[in-house]
């Protein structure tokens, strides 16, 4: 029963989607009920998973393996480590709250929930896949629901709606063509998102196929590949094969993260998407990128990762600064949050690039924390949009009188996003900054300035939406009063603040996943006993002298880890 917990988490949303097919759209409450029930099962199981995960034991737990195709070397191999567990929890929380955030969708309710559930289940599938094939399978599967969610229930930008002259209407209705950048319609956003993500997904797929071919093991199993695949020192095209694979995998997956020059689909997509989709998109879909890089590049090519990761350290600066600046000047609530997400993903890349225990743990916790914070912000931006039918910052204002609850939550959301002490974001940011300081002091300075920038644009948005004079046309708006409207925000605030005050379980879990990985990557000199321990899942073979004991994470204060790192 308990050992199948991953299957419950993964298949509860699928089962919900399947059940919804047989329900009529004329019974909206039944539709919502099924959605709530399936996501609730998913959430309860994910919470159980999070607390049942044993950080002392570490490694991959709750492993499930079903042979799927012998000829192709594919198995449905599921398992979570300390990195996957919190992300599964974050996905479950955002899915559960997302169902409530979408409560008032009237058009084709059933279809909306079907695609939302499939999207979330696919992302959860990535976080627990231990097989490269299924990792890609779920990854690609999460893209198409986005197209329909954006296209069918999304919203156009103001710029698009302003085109009312005949020429403009002609232009804006020709949006079937991708190169029509003038028209920021939801169709354009949806198409751009899908094509962009698919294009880079196939780049990653090329990397995966090369791993499959050159490992010569005829398997896609990550656990086998990371122990046995030897992809080093194969010369090809003037460089070595492992570098090419690493580049393919890194940029293939980093596009969804999104790293700086590949980010442009993301804010457009955020802006067009309905609230719950933005939440899942920013909250968990973007983390698929970091997670897949960790799972594929870090696990299978540790030595190449050590060599190549400075690329991420360079690009993350652009992510942080560019995203922050655009967010500061953006005039659309969702663009602000969207670009802020792109900017904040730069912090995760910084933490990953520094490659030590503290910074990488910080990066993983940041993914979790950012999911909650940005989920809140998008949920509230969605509420404001539903009430006012605009996302245009200059025309909004003074809504705090009309919606005090939303305004209050918005402050909490901004605080969380900034990384105020008391929220889990604070812990993550401190860990990234402390952990990266020795290796990348310049980037850390930029990151700290980026926090100031975050403060600037979020306060700016808060002022523009909730304070100042209110236009009369918004006098009909009202606050979130009903339980179903308040519940999602309260849940996300509770998770964010709860883990901000009691972070130890989260920290222990993440450390148990990060420690063996960092030990494997940063450990340079070969040791005689490399091949003996391979049988045991979750143990790295190269357990060297600088590996920290997993058993007693509590016994050391944070600073002593940081100091030990660089002895």
């Amino acid at each position, binding site marked *: 029963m308990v050992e199948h917990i991953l299957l419950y988490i993964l298949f509860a949303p699928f089962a919900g989607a399947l059940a919804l097919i047989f329900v009529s759209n004329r019974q909206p409450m039944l539709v919502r009920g099924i959605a709530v029930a399936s996501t609730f099962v998913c959430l309860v199981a994910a919470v159980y998973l999070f607390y049942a995960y044993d950080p002392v034991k570490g490694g991959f737990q709750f492993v499930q393996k079903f*042979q*799927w*195709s*012998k*000829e*192709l070397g594919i198995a449905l191999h599921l398992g979570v480590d300390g990195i996957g567990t919190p992300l599964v929890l974050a996905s479950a929380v955002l899915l559960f709250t997302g169902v409530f955030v979408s409560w008032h969708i009237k058009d*084709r309710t059933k*279809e909306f929930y079907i695609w939302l559930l499939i999207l979330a289940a696919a992302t959860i599938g990535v976080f627990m896949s231990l097989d490269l*094939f299924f990792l*890609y*399978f*779920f990854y*690609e*599967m999460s*893209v*198409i629901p986005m*197209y*329909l969610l954006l*296209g*069918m229930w999304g919203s156009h930008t103001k710029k698009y709606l302003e085109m009312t002259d005949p020429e403009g209407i002609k232009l804006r209705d020709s949006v*079937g063509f*991708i190169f029509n950048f003038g028209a920021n319609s*939801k*169709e354009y956003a*949806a*198409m751009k998102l*899908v*094509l962009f993500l*698919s*294009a880079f997904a*196939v*780049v990653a*797929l*090329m990397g995966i*196929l*090369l791993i*499959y*071919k050159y490992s010569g093991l005829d398997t896609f199993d990550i656990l086998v590949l990371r122990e046995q695949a030897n992809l080093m020192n194969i010369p090809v095209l003037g460089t070595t094969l492992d570098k090419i694979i690493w580049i393919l995998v890194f940029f293939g997956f980093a596009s969804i993260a999104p790293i700086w020059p590949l980010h442009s689909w993301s804010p457009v997509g955020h802006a067009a998407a309905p609230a719950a989709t933005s939440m899942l998109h920013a909250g968990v879909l973007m983390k698929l990128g970091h997670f897949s890089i960790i799972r594929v590049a870090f696990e299978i090519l540790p030595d190449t990762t050590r060599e190549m990761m400075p690329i991420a350290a360079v690009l993350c600066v652009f992510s942080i600064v560019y995203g922050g600046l655009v967010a500061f000047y953006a005039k659309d609530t969702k663009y602000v949050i969207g670009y802020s997400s792109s900017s904040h993903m730069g912090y995760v890349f910084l933490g990953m690039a520094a490659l030590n225990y503290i910074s990488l743990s910080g990066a993983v916790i940041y993914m979790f924390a950012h999911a909650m914070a940005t989920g809140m912000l998008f949920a509230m931006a969605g509420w404001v949009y539903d009430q006012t039918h605009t996302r245009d910052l200059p025309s909004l204002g003074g809504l705090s009188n009309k919606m005090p609850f939303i305004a209050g939550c918005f402050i909490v959301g901004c605080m969380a996003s900034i990384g105020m002490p008391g929220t889990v974001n604070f812990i993550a940011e401190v860990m990234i900054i402390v952990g990266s300081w020795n290796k990348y002091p310049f980037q850390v300075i930029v990151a700290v300035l980026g926090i100031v920038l975050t403060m600037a644009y979020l306060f700016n948005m808060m002022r523009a939406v909730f304070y100042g004079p209110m236009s009369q046309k918004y006098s009909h708006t009202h606050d979130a009063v009903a339980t179903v409207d308040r519940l999602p925000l309260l849940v996300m605030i509770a998770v964010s603040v709860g883990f901000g005050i009691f972070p130890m379980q989260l920290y222990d879990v993440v450390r148990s996943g990060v420690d063996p990985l960092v030990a494997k990557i940063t450990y340079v000199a070969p040791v005689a006993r490399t091949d003996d321990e391979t049988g045991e899942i979750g143990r790295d073979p190269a357990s060297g002298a600088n590996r920290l004991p997993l058993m007693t994470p509590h016994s050391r204060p944070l600073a002593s880890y940081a100091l030990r790192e660089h002895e």
Partner: protein
Amino acid sequence: MTFDLTISAADLLLLLPEIFLTCWLCVVLIVDFASPRLPHTRLAVLSVIGLVATLACLAWFDVAHVSGSLFGNMFVLDRMAIFFKMFVVGSTALVILASMQYVDRFTLFRGEYYFLVMMSALGMMFMVSANDLLSLFVSIEFSTLGFYILVGYLREDLTSNEAGLKFFILGVFAAGLLAYGISLVYGETGKLVFSEMTPTNTTGTIIGFLLIFAALGFKIGAVPFHSWIPDTYHGAPTPVTAFLSIAPKGAAFAILIRLFFVAVASFKPMWVLLLVAVSILSMTYGNIVAIAQRNIKRLLAYSGIAQVGNVLIGLAAGTKMGSDAILFYLLTYLFANIGAFAVVIAVAHAIGSEEIDDYSGLNRRSPFLAFAMLLFLLSLAGVPPLAGFIGKLYIFIAAVKEGLYTLITVGLINIVISMYYYLVVVKKMYINEPTDPSPVNISGPMKAVVYIGLAGTLVIGIYPQPVIEWVVDATLMFSNMVGPSAVVTPSLPPFGG
């Protein structure tokens, strides 16, 4: 050479499906003549019963491992032949089910329609068993004969007539190429049976095989032999288009596999290059031109050209796994394509249009049809968890093992290009609002075809292992094929020897 033409009862058993189907189509024809007032749907049901019985017989052959060869190796029945026969018969049954409503449009000769469809299927059943150049020629012409008539079946429709004429002229031209190629190859090698050939590297042999390949390329519609495809697909009655887009391709690939893997296996370094070039051209041309299409049948025609390019990747891999992947891919293509055409037929019946613009808001008019079309198109595009994704991946895995990186790169880029035009149709169906919101109804047999297509697309996508095992068993005879990567340096025999 001498042929042993004495046939024993055991030999006749090998021909049982063909003999049965021949008798059955005579029955259909006689019933049609004998009772002209009988509604044609009865004939359709009768035909489907016959085809299902044939399918059952083939399934029994497959389970019982019946195999052998006849007429001095002209006709072989191995597991691959059985696979392709089931492929052809199955797709024919689905096409007849999907035709039942459409046949009302024909003013004359409604009964003969079913006869002709089954006759073409019979020809293709011989085609997949063809093991020498003569039976190859005869069976190809036999199966194409029915198609010549079927494509021009809408007598009053000019586009249908044009399609028929175009198909006929180019088809006869291809037949000429085939005959010329066969004569050259026979002149050089002195052999007709594939497995007995020991082709040497002479000008005549190479030109001969190139001509044969061109004729088969015409059948599958690979670039540069594709020029008949869009107009013929567009003008032909839609069920015939569906038939034409699936069954002959499967049958022709059966012959291509035998030809390349058996007859000219020793020329492998050379034909790999040829196939790589044709595959890249087909995929890229098909996908890029498909973007500009406004008519759904033309879109599916160009997408079909691109899909053939994908299948050719498996052939270029030239290994056992490559042939497995071809079989698997064709099966996924069968379900997705027949399903998509069924939706096209159903929609055209309801709204009288095949323009993509008229699919606007299909989701509101018929959620079922829109959802089915969505899944079929996404399967063609290769999106998990649908069958097309596994098919593409299977082919790519087979190719990557042989180190065909250029081909895979082009194939992967083409996935993204194809995604665009399939999604444009999805956008029309799901995002645009309908101009006429009246619901679109769908008849029973059509629903059955769509359900079968959906079931195949989803089941193979989610749990492909039984099908993988099936195709792996079907091509066991190619286990000894080695890839070009096994050849240390592919030293090319000079063209023209």
